[in-house]
């Protein structure tokens, strides 16, 4: 009797222990599927979402707050003139296929990205590099052609992660990195599975397995979270359902900020938008809060310039473009358009554009500006608006971090051409002193706000719906990443 009872007790205790032992697998829902798995040769944010920090790592890396810290480079020295960066790499790091990570891999990755035949979507990040030298196994010397205060920041991007020459040919299907998770399996159209890397150089991940499931339809996403088929859904596509999740104790809703400045972009070379008074009139005709409430269900922070409000160097310029339809009408009359005019409004697929576009059209109509709305797919938008510059107005969220530099490119799709701004940007690139960089960034923000280049609407917010027992998820999205290295289950 006694042994039997003991066995019973042991059995019950084991079961209790198993129940108490926290879950170690995670299913993450994502709206978009990566086209392939090479972060260094495509712009698709979904690639970084799955692989950044999880599978691939760079010399430096973004933290959850957007700060840049050490990655595969443990530390670095910068020469007096700001031209030479000497990176000291971590020792004992190996790729998932067992090959050793060393300075040659860094040289290979950087040279590949800046090569003539490179397919890197952010080649500009590497354009300042003049040479990359292997000093010894764990030391790399990068020489720049001009000082670049943003170099360490650039190296933290997903497009600058370190890849190995041994596994490069198959990277698009079988990515091999150095991260805390190994790539396991990809069922195209359905899911990607990662498993914990037992040989990770840093703190090992707490999750044993993570699956990314691709659910594009907002209604299906809602159903999948409700039925608990997925444990977390970053960038949840149906904001109208968020109150329902907030009210449900099974879930937590995390609303974070992104690097997405959502703007009403204007064709600065097209009549009558080439007249600053007309652009100013458009900007004053817009009620940002009405758009945030009406199109985004209250998610989003108003911005007055092309800069992320959570960034320490952000300047609040909202007053300069406050909602004032009377002023708009006056400005239009001054510019000779007292009776208004008609222009095009071309809208890409995201709801901020489609829903926001309808509201903006109504607000512009109130001051006499008629818009012809066209809905475009992304591929069409790139062709017509971005490349063809055949548009009057468009709404788009610029999701790259710290991308105010696009205003220094006169051929960029909104065609803002200001010598003064271009000089400021050149000065910023060459400046490594943090205080002076802040000053320059502030004047750049003011410059574009005063020139009313675009209508600055709001910083795109990103809601994550997750199981209430999940911890360690990124709330803000300083880059398009879903860093699972610190994620764990409570209980």
């Amino acid at each position, binding site marked *: 009797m006694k042994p039997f009872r003991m066995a019973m007790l042991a059995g019950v205790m084991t079961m209790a222990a198993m129940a108490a032992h926290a879950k170690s697998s995670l299913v993450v829902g994502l709206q978009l599927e990566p086209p392939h798995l090479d972060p260094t040769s495509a712009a698709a944010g979904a690639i970084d979402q799955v692989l950044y920090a999880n599978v691939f790592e760079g010399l430096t890396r973004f933290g959850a707050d957007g700060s840049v810290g050490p990655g595969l480079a443990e530390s670095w020295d910068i020469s007096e003139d700001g031209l030479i960066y000497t990176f000291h790499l971590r020792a004992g790091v190996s790729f998932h296929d067992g090959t050793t990570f060393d300075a040659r891999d860094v040289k290979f990755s950087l040279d590949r990205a800046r090569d003539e035949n490179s*397919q890197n979507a952010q080649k500009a990040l590497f354009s300042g590099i003049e040479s990359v030298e292997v000093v010894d196994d764990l030391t790399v010397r990068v020489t720049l052609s001009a000082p670049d205060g943003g170099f360490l920041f650039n190296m933290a991007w997903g497009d600058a992660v370190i890849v190995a020459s041994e596994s490069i040919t198959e990277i698009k299907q079988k990515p091999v990195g150095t991260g805390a998770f190994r790539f396991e399996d990809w069922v195209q159209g*359905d899911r990607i599975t990662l498993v914990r890397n037992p040989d990770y150089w840093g703190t090992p991940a707490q999750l044993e397995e993570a699956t990314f499931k691709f659910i594009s339809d907002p209604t299906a996403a809602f159903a999948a979270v409700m*039925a608990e088929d997925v444990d977390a859904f970053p960038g949840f596509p149906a904001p109208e359902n968020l109150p329902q999740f907030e009210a449900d104790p099974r879930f937590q809703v995390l609303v974070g900020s992104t690097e997405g400045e959502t703007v009403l972009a204007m064709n600065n070379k097209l009549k009558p938008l080439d007249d600053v008074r007309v652009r100013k009139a458009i900007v004053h005709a817009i009620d940002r809060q009405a758009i945030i409430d009406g199109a985004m269900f209250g998610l989003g922070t108003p911005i007055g310039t092309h800069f992320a409000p959570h960034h320490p160097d952000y300047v609040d310029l909202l007053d300069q473009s406050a909602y004032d339809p009377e002023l708009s009408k006056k400005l239009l009359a001054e510019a000779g358009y007292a009776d208004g005019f008609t222009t095009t409004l071309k809208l890409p697929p995201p709801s901020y554009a489609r829903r926001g576009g309808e509201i903006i059209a109504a607000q512009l109509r109130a001051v006499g500006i008629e818009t012809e709305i066209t809905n475009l797919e992304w591929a069409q938008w790139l062709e017509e608006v971005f490349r063809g510059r055949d548009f009057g107005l468009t709404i788009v969220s610029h999701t790259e971090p710290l991308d105010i530099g696009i205003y220094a490119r006169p051929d960029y799709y909104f065609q803002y051409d200001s010598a003064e701004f271009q000089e400021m940007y050149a000065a910023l690139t060459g400046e490594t002193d943090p205080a002076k960089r802040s000053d320059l960034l502030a004047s750049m923000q003011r410059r574009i706000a005063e020139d009313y280049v675009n209508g600055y609407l709001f910083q795109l917010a990103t809601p994550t719906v997750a199981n209430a027992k999940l911890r360690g998820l990124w709330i803000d999205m300083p880059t398009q990443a879903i860093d699972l290295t610190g994620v764990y289950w409570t209980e």
Partner: protein
Amino acid sequence: MLRYALRRLISLGVTLLVASLVIFLALEVVPGDPAAYMLGVNARPDTLAALRAELGLDQTPPARYAAWVAGMLTGDLGLSYTYRTPVVDMIVERLQVSLPLAVYALALSTLIAFPAGIWAAARRGSVVDVVVMGVTQLGVAIPNFWFAMLMVLVFSINLRWFSAGGFPGWEAGVGPGLKALTLPAVALALPQASILARIMRSALIETLSEDYIRTARAKGLSRGQALWRHALRNAMIPVLTIIGLQFSFLLAGVIIIENVFFLPGLGRLVFQAIAARDLIAVESVVMFLVFAVVVVNFAVDLAYAWVDPRLRGRR
């Protein structure tokens, strides 16, 4: 019979050739550059050029068409622009979801429609007939994606009997695989079954009023015997036509249902490929679907000849 089959076969080839041309031209006209889509807004012109060269987009349209058709004749459907894997492999992988789903839905639809249609026709004007007609009227009217969402709400979110979507893969076993396909198959089958039941009923009623049925009855066959032995076979022609059409529809038309249940099938592939301007994948998958439809129709034509001997001699 052989000449009849041969004729059908030639028309099949011509149809495929015309279809390939139409598909290619249609996608040529659609604006949007696959390379620009992949590289996004910060891409440099030289990077774009490098990618375009790798994808073969720098060649002229006729050259690309020729290469595509020549490849297809040898069974090579090209390399996907975005995934960079052979389109053939992608189709084979996705078919493991779409084909069982279509067969499952068709089986359900037939299993529901045949008894319902036959029963309603046999008891014309009875309560059974009224109920079948009423339900099928509703089934035809309800959009399948809406019905699908309703089922997800009831069976996945409230009752938790099924997961809300997704497919575990056949390696997880036949049971879990079929279970994952059940809600989508029911959603697809309901409208199909309704149509089929109505066709079955009206075709049967029509044949039941033919002279030869009266003759059969006069010979002493009961109503039921006449129905099973004579009427049913003659009523099969329109029913077979509909089944053929439905199978094609199910294979090609699951895009919405696959999105509602996030199943990694062919429909989802086409959907993603169009958005990404993965032209070669779209062209090849659509071509494959055309091929499947044409082959199914060919099979249906042969089946006509089988159930109706008159057709063998006539053509």
